[in-house]
């Protein structure tokens, strides 16, 4: 069976993947206009400034939209059907992700439900995925 695809960092995305390896979801924001953004790149997409900085996001998000895929990509045969989701981070930006810890059904996956980041090993990187909020201790 084909292995699942492994992201290959570039110099401008390396800090993101370093954060994932450390168990942190790191985003960038513009030091001039203040807007956080994703995916990592060295220029603010809102104002064009190159004065941007990294910060550690809360890891909390809500479910923005998804599909439940029944035709698995190579490497995902054992997972089908599986959700491919887009979450809206509490800080504002959205990202694609997998949903873990919940059945891949329309009943279990309600839009706007709160989610929390987790990290899964994938080859030599850690991949951010999202699941239900962990119960308060």
């Amino acid at each position: 069976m084909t292995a699942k695809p492994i992201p290959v960092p570039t110099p401008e995305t390396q800090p993101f993947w370093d954060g994932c390896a450390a168990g942190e979801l790191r985003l960038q924001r513009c030091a001039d206009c203040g807007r956080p953004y994703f995916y990592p790149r060295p220029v603010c997409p809102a104002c064009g400034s190159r004065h941007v900085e990294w910060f550690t996001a809360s890891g909390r998000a809500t479910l923005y939209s998804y599909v439940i895929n029944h035709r698995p990509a190579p490497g995902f045969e054992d997972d089908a059907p599986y959700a491919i989701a887009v979450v809206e981070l509490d800080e504002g930006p959205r990202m694609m992700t997998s949903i873990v810890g919940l059945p891949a059904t329309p009943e279990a996956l309600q839009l706007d439900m709160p989610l929390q980041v987790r990290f899964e090993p994938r080859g030599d990187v850690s991949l951010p995925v999202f699941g239900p909020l962990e119960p308060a201790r």
Partner: protein
Amino acid sequence: MTGVIIAGAAETDRIGLLPDHSTLQLHVEGALNTVADAGLSLRDIDGIATVSAPGPVQVAHALGITPRWIDGTGVGGTSFLLHVRHAAAAIRAGYARTVLITHGESGRSRVGASRYRMEASSPVGQFEVPYGVFGPTTTFTIPLLRYMKEFGLTHEQLAYVAVAQRRWAAKNPRAAYRDPVTVEDVLASRIVAYPFHLLECCLVTDGGGALVVTSAERAGSFPKPAVHVLGTGESSETPMISQMADFTESAAFRLAGRAAFAEARIGVADVDHLMIYDAFAHVPIYGLEALGFTAKGEAGAFIADGNTEPGGSLPLNTNGGGLSYTHTGMYGMFAIQEGVRQLRGEAAAQVGSPQISVILGNGGMFATAGVLVLGRQPG
């Protein structure tokens, strides 16, 4: 007014399953049919436009054309609409006189076709592919649940898009699927990527087609009635579906439509016939709203009420569309062809004598858009 006309338009002899045609041969056959349709010879062509692969240099060489103007814009299935727009500018500038725009794609048989591969270090490769995306069925489809929640679109209304287009396809002998279907049939077809069922996803076929674009001053000197290019628009939003600004609307569709309608100096009430690139059943819904034919959130009901099917007030996707006619992968060429046929009065499902046909092309997954306003009269 762009000052140009479509003087020739034709598809390959056959469309559908063509394992005996390479990708390049589909370009060549569509081109030869189109040059003949325009009453021209290949020696009259001095500009060439198509996507890679095979690209404009290969197509021109195969046909023995030596171009003095080349456009290789390749931004997905809407590229051919952009080629028309770019050709209009080139013809006005005097860079070319007679432009040939070709499409050929062995989408199903994959004969002589390039392999699509996304680099693992690209933004899509790092931030989407690792989550198990597998072609357009897993990405183009993702925005819709958000739209359904925001605007109350039902599964039945989505299914009805396929039902309405099948009614057009039933009138078209070249359409791949012609048997009538019901909402129940669509909802009973297997789920490909929830909320999408098989019959809400486009075909995958082989085929091709081409256009000859030239100055409107030459209208009347070709065998077929001239189709005037009255307005054009193009735009792009994002190559990553996850980064689309608002999952309930396409900014690229809206911007390209606004530019084309402004250039043509028309409004939605002037439009007699409409083609909206339908890779999936929700795309016509997004398109109708982006172009202003309905208010936001109302296009699903507009289609389900019968307005776009045979006998309705706004004939939409009258060849049967990507859902029922054909979809090679870059369907935009076929949407233009049907607009031309309707304005010439030679469509299989002819809708009277339309004066204005609008074509909305999509590239990628809501990534790029092109719009053409075509007219029977100069404007």
